[in-house]
C-alpha cells in the first residue's frame, strides 16, 4: 500500500539557522504516527512546511502520491490535510458554529462566484452539530471560543480540521496544557477518528499517552530524522534516550 | 439603585440636549426686524487667524453702523458662521444663512475653495454674495449674484510682475510657489507679465501650505543668484522663507503678495529679515483716505494690534453690501444692480474703479515695502490694461 503522505528530504532554514535538514517521513493510511523529539528539534517547522505555511528549501511533499510541494496552505488544506495548532488559533469572536462552518464551506469559499453571496449558511447547522458532537462540544455551538476553556478550544480546532473532510489530520501537541481528565477523552476521540479511517500525524511531548495512542513513532532531533518504528522499540533506542537526556 | 446613572448616561443626556438645542435653534423675535447679513469665515481649524481677523473687522463695522442709527433706522444683525476651512461646511453654512436666517446678503471672509462652494449656493438662491479676499478665478463664474472686492490672483500676480520688471528693473527671478489655487494663480500672472517684460525665471519651486523648512530650496536659489525672489506664501511660510534666506546669507531683493499682508503672522515672525521686502496687496497703510485711517486706528484701539489684509478686505466686502442696501433697500436684484453700478467707490482697501460684468473688481494694486518692521507705501500699479481681468 502506498503511503498517504510522503515527505522526502525536506530542508528549511531561517536566516542561517538550519531548522530542518533533509527530513523524510511516510504516513501510512489509517495509522497514527507520533512525531516526538526535544524542544527546538524542528517538529512544528516540519508541520508548517508540510502544510504549506513555509515553502521548503529542498525536498518534496506528496499527498496520495501527488506532489504538493510549495502549494499555498489553503490549497493543501483543501487537498485534504487538516491541522491544529500548538498555540490554539480559534476564530475568537465568532460562534463555534461559524468557526467550523468556515472549514466546512471550503469548497464554496473557493473564489468569487454566485454561490458566495447565496445565504443558506444555516442549512449546514446539522452537519456542524455532528462535527462538534464528534469532539463533545455540541452544547457550546452558539458560544464563542473566548468563553471556553483551553481544552474545549483544542477540541474545537480538531472539529474545524475535520470539517475539511481531510485525508490526513495533523495535530500539533493536542494534549499540551490539558489536565489528565481532559486528555483521556481527547485521546479517545483521536483513536475513534483513526478507526473511522483517518490517517493521523501528531506532535506530542506527553510520552506515556503517545506510546499508548500511536502505532508508530518518529523521532526528530536538531532538524534531522533520528529513527522511527513501533513505540516499544523507540523507547529502548539509545540514540533517543541521549537526545532527550542531552537536551 | 440610583447608581445605575453614571457618566455614560450623563453623556447621552448631554448629547440629546445638544441635539434638541441644535434642531430647535434660537428663533429671533419678529418685532425688531433688523437687516440680517451673513458672514462665513474659518473660525476654527488651520485658518482660524484669518477667520478671526475677518470676523473682528466686520463686527467692528456693524457696531459703527448701528451706533450711527443703522440703515434707515433699521439695525444690522451680523450672522457669523464658522466654515471650519471645509467646503462641505461652507455649503451647509450658506444654506443655513439663506434659509434659516433669511439673510439679505452674504459676505465671505474665507478662503477660495470654501468660498467657491458657498458662492454656488448663493447664486442658486439668488442672494448677493460679496467676497472679501478669496482669489480663485472661478468664484464669480457662478453668475451675477457673486462679487469680489479684491483683485484676482492672476491680476495681482501681473501687477507683481510689472513691478519687478518695470519698477525694480530686475533681470532674473526665482519663484517659490505655494501649491494651492492662491499661490498658483498669483504665480501664473507674475510669470506671464514678468516674462513679457524680459525677466528670466531661473527657477520655480512649489511648496505646500504649512511648509517650514525652505533651506534646501533657498540653498539652491543662492547658487542661481537671481535679482529677485518672488514668493506666493501665507504669512508664516513667507516669514520663514525670509528668515532662512537671511540665515543663509542671501541678500537678494524679495517680493511677496497679499498673502504676507499680516502684522502678527508675518512681521513678528520674520523680524529683521523682513526688511525691504515688497508685497503686492490692496491695503495701503499710508493711505490718506479717511476711511482707511479710521479703520486702521479703530481696529488697533479695539483689538490691540494692527489689522491685516484679510480683515480689511472682508470689511470692504461687508461695507459695500451695507452701502448698496442704504441706496436701494434689501431687494436682492436691486442690490446686485447697485453693485454693478458702483464706480469710484472708496473702501478701506482703495478705490474701486468699476466691476466687470463678471463681478470682478477693477482697482489699483498697492505695493508696500517693509521698513523698520512696518508696512509702508512703496508704489501703486494703476495700469488699467494690467488690472482688467
Amino acid at each position: 500500500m502506498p503511503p498517504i503522505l510522503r515527505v522526502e528530504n525536506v530542508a528549511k532554514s531561517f536566516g542561517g539557522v538550519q531548522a530542518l535538514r533533509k527530513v523524510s517521513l511516510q504516513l501510512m493510511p489509517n495509522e497514527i504516527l507520533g512525531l516526538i523529539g526535544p524542544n527546538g528539534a524542528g517538529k512544528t517547522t516540519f508541520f508548517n512546511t508540510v502544510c504549506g505555511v513555509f515553502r521548503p528549501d529542498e525536498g518534496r511533499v506528496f499527498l496520495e502520491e501527488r506532489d504538493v510541494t510549495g502549494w499555498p496552505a489553503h490549497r493543501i488544506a483543501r487537498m485534504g490535510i487538516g491541522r491544529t495548532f500548538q498555540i490554539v488559533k480559534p476564530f475568537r469572536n465568532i460562534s463555534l458554529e461559524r468557526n467550523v462552518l468556515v472549514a466546512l464551506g471550503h469548497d464554496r469559499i473557493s473564489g468569487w462566484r454566485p454561490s458566495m453571496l447565496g445565504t443558506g449558511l444555516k442549512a449546514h447547522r446539522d452537519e456542524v452539530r455532528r462535527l462538534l458532537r464528534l469532539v463533545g462540544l455540541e452544547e457550546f455551538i452558539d458560544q464563542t471560543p473566548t468563553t471556553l476553556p483551553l481544552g474545549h478550544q483544542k477540541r474545537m480546532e480538531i472539529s474545524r480540521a475535520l470539517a475539511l473532510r481531510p485525508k490526513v489530520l495533523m495535530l500539533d501537541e493536542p494534549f499540551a496544557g490539558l489536565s489528565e481528565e481532559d486528555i483521556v477523552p481527547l485521546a479517545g476521540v483521536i483513536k475513534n477518528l483513526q478507526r473511522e479511517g483517518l490517517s493521523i500525524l501528531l506532535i506530542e511531548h506527553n510520552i506515556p499517552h503517545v506510546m499508548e495512542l500511536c502505532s508508530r513513532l518518529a523521532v526528530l532531533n536538531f532538524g534531522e530524522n533520528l529513527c522511527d518504528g513501533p513505540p516499544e522499540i523507540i523507547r529502548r533506542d539509545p540514540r533517543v534516550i541521549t537526545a532527550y537526556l542531552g537536551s | 439603585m440610583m447608581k445605575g446613572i453614571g457618566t455614560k448616561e450623563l453623556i447621552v443626556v448631554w448629547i440629546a440636549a445638544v441635539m434638541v438645542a441644535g434642531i430647535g435653534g434660537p428663533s429671533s423675535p419678529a418685532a425688531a426686524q433688523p437687516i440680517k447679513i451673513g458672514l462665513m469665515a474659518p473660525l476654527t481649524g488651520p485658518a482660524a487667524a484669518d477667520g478671526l481677523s475677518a470676523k473682528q473687522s466686520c463686527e467692528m463695522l456693524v457696531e459703527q453702523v448701528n451706533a450711527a442709527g443703522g440703515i434707515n433706522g433699521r439695525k444690522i444683525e451680523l450672522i457669523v458662521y464658522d466654515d471650519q476651512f471645509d467646503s462641505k461646511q461652507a455649503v451647509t453654512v450658506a444654506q443655513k444663512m439663506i434659509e434659516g436666517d433669511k439673510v439679505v446678503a452674504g459676505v465671505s471672509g474665507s478662503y477660495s475653495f470654501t468660498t467657491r462652494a458657498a458662492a454656488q449656493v448663493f447664486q442658486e438662491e439668488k442672494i448677493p454674495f460679496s467676497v472679501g479676499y478669496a482669489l480663485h478665478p472661478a468664484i464669480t463664474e457662478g453668475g451675477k449674484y457673486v462679487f469680489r472686492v479684491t483683485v484676482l490672483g492672476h491680476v495681482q500676480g501681473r501687477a507683481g510682475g510689472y513691478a519687478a520688471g518695470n519698477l525694480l528693473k530686475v533681470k532674473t527671478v526665482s519663484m517659490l510657489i505655494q501649491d494651492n489655487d492662491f499661490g498658483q494663480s498669483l504665480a501664473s500672472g507674475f510669470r506671464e507679465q514678468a516674462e513679457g517684460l524680459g525677466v528670466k525665471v531661473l527657477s520655480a519651486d512649489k511648496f505646500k501650505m504649512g511648509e517650514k523648512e525652505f533651506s534646501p530650496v533657498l540653498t539652491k536659489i543662492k547658487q542661481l543668484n537671481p535679482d529677485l525672489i518672488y514668493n506666493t506664501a501665507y504669512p508664516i511660510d513667507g516669514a520663514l522663507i525670509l528668515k532662512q534666506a537671511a540665515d543663509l546669507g542671501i541678500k537678494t531683493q524679495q517680493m511677496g503678495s497679499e498673502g504676507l499682508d499680516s502684522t502678527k503672522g508675518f512681521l513678528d515672525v520674520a523680524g529683521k529679515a523682513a526688511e525691504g521686502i515688497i508685497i503686492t496687496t490692496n491695503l495701503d497703510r499710508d493711505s490718506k483716505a479717511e476711511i482707511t485711517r479710521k479703520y486702521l486706528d479703530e481696529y488697533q484701539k479695539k483689538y490691540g494690534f494692527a489689522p491685516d489684509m484679510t480683515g480689511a478686505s472682508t470689511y470692504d466686502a461687508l461695507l459695500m453690501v451695507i452701502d448698496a442696501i442704504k441706496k436701494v433697500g434689501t431687494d436682492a436684484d436691486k442690490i446686485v444692480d447697485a453693485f454693478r453700478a458702483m464706480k469710484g467707490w472708496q473702501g478701506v482697501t482703495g478705490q474701486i474703479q468699476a466691476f466687470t460684468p463678471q463681478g470682478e473688481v477693477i482697482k489699483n494694486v498697492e505695493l508696500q515695502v517693509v521698513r523698520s518692521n512696518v508696512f509702508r507705501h512703496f508704489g501703486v500699479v494703476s495700469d488699467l490694461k494690467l488690472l482688467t481681468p
Partner: protein
Amino acid sequence: MGLGYLTTIGTLVCIYAILAISLNIISGYAGQASLGHAAFFGIGAYASALLTLKLGIGFWVAAPLAMMAAGAIGAVVGVISLRIKGDFLAVTTIGINFVIVTVFEYSDFFGGAYGIMGIQYPTLFGVKISKGYYLLMCLGFVGLCALFSLLVSKSWLGLALEAIRENEAAAEASGINCAKFKIIAFAFGCAWAGLAGVLFAHFMRFITPNDFAFPISITIVAMMVVGGIGTLRGPILGALLMAALPELLRPLANYRLLFYGGLIVLMTRFQPQGLFGDKAFILRMLLGRGPRSMRHSGD
C-alpha cells in the same frame, strides 16, 4: 430650518454613511486597517468629474466606471496588504492617501490646485434632478450599499472575511485563500467609496484635492468606530451622528471643535465597542435589559 439646509446635511450624511459602511467591509469584516479611505472617495469623485466633463459621458454611465476605477486601485492596495500587515499597513494606507491626493494636486490633468469645477447635477430621462430628489437618490444608494454589506455578512464571503480578521493562519489552514479575499474586500470597499465620491462630486459640483485629504479618512474611521465596528448599524448611525455633530454643535460656536474632539475621546473611552455596537449600553437600554447590566462592562 430650511429644506435646503436639511437636504444638504442629509446628502452629506448619506455620502458619509456609504463611506463608513464600505470601510467597515474592509476594516470591520476583513479586519484590515485602512486609514486612507478618503483616497478612494477622491478617486471616485475625480473619475466621475473627468468622465462627465472631459468625455461628456452621462452620470449613470460614469458612476459605475468611477466605482470600477476606485475598486481597481483598491485592489492594488489589497495586494500591498498581503505583504505589509497590521499597524504597518495602517500607516502605509495613510501614505497612500497622501500620494493619491498629491497626484490630484500636482497634475494639471486633475485640475491641480484649482480643483475641478462645473460638474453638473445628474439628469434622469433628460430632466435635471432637484436637490430633494438627489437626497432621495443618495438614500437609495445608502440602502443598496447597506444591502450589499448585509448580504456579504450573511454569506460565505462574509464568513471567509471574518475568519481572516480573526486569524489568518487558521483561515488558511481551513482552506481559505486569504490573499484573494483581502483583495476582494479592498476592491469592494473601495468601489463603494468611489460611489460616495461620485455622489459627492455631483452634489458639490466643485471638488479640490483638499476634500479627500487624510483628515477625511480619519473622520470616516471615527464614524465607524464610534458607531460600532463590525456591525452594519454601527457605521450608519455613526455617520449620522458624526456628520450631523458639527451642525448640532454650532450653538457652541467657538468651542465646537473642542467639544467634537472631547466627544470622540469620551465615546471611545467609555463605549469602546461603539455607541451602537453589540455591547453598547444604548442598545441595552432600548432593549429593556436596563442599565444594571452595565456593571459587567466594568469600570
